[in-house]
């Protein structure tokens, strides 16, 4: 009965593997990143494949930022100031982020934000 009262604690589940049913949405596909190729090329195939999904997430983050600061100043700050930060990021990450932004056709500052989200989010 406790599973119908928050925090909805269940009896320990068993026989859940192989994953199926309502707690399993899908398997995850594999991609290769060749570290011998230049940082600007490493992610091209993957980003080309996932571009639309990435656009959706970045838009959601932008919407969230605009909801927090309705004047649009926060997104403006991200778009103006974070591209400057990319040059300070350690190699090869800055180069890779620039290439991802270019392939996805996204503002560089917003891709930088996505890549430093952990540090931002712990605020």
């Amino acid at each position, binding site marked *: 009965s406790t*599973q*119908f009262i*928050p*925090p*909805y*604690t*269940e*009896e*320990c*589940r*068993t026989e*859940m*593997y192989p*994953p199926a049913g*309502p*707690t*399993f*949405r*899908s*398997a*995850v*596909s*594999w*991609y*290769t*990143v*060749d*570290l*011998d190729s230049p940082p600007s090329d490493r*992610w091209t195939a*993957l*980003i080309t*494949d*996932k571009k639309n*999904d*990435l656009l*959706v*997430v970045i838009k959601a*983050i932008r*919407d*969230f930022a605009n909801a927090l600061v309705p004047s649009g100043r926060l997104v403006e700050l991200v778009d103006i100031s974070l591209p400057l*930060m990319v040059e*300070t*990021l*350690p190699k090869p*990450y800055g180069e*890779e*982020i620039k290439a*991802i932004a270019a392939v996805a056709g996204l503002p560089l500052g917003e*891709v930088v934000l*996505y*890549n*430093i*989200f*952990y*540090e*931002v*989010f*712990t*605020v």
Partner: protein
Amino acid sequence: CTSVVAEDDEGNLFHARNLDFGIFMGWDVKNKSWIISEKLKPLVINLNFKRNNQTLFKSTNFAGYVGLLTGVKPNLFTLTMNERFNLDGGFVGILEWIFGKRDGMWMGFLMRSVLENANSYKEAQTLLVQTKLLAPAYFILGGNQTGQGCIITRSRLHSIDVLELDLKLGRWYVLETNYDHWNEPLFLDDRRTSAMKCMNQTTQTNITPKTMYDVLSTKPVLNKLTVYTTLMQVSGGKLESFIRDCPNPCMPW
């Protein structure tokens, strides 16, 4: 997040995690889900990082994110991180970075650098303990030999605590959610008690990646923030991951 490193009776090491992300970033009332968590799910991918045409390490990532949160260096070690909330958080680190104090490391980049460059559990542990960070974090590290598994509790500047597997003390697994292990978790967010109950109920004899998946499928360890579950085995460098859903009723975190 919930991360676990466990050792079975025969000395095999397994590492599994739920990645929970997106709290307070917009709640979809209609679908009873977190907006960002849902939108991240299609971006989950497994990556095979190769050098000289050979696998160097594998990871579960979000497309477009060049750092790492979950990975295995085959036959050497496994590594995950969980978020640690602290007043001296990422904001201070970012400000320092902007003002030119750049001796700290971004968390995702450090994870990738460790998987790329460390060649043993001990080497990885040293890097994770000693490198200055921009934000606090928990690192959960598994090795390839008996007793090699630990939770490293990090502030931005130094390691606060390292909790290791200790079979003699009966500690055959280490489990981390998002609270310092020596403190009680927030009563509204106690995934630790449920997860530990299920691990103890499973027993060391029966622990496998499959039974760890069972533990990570039990609410509230599985919750509305859970984006993916990854199962790793250091031996052979096995990594598999699954995108998750938490059907109602389910805790939002």
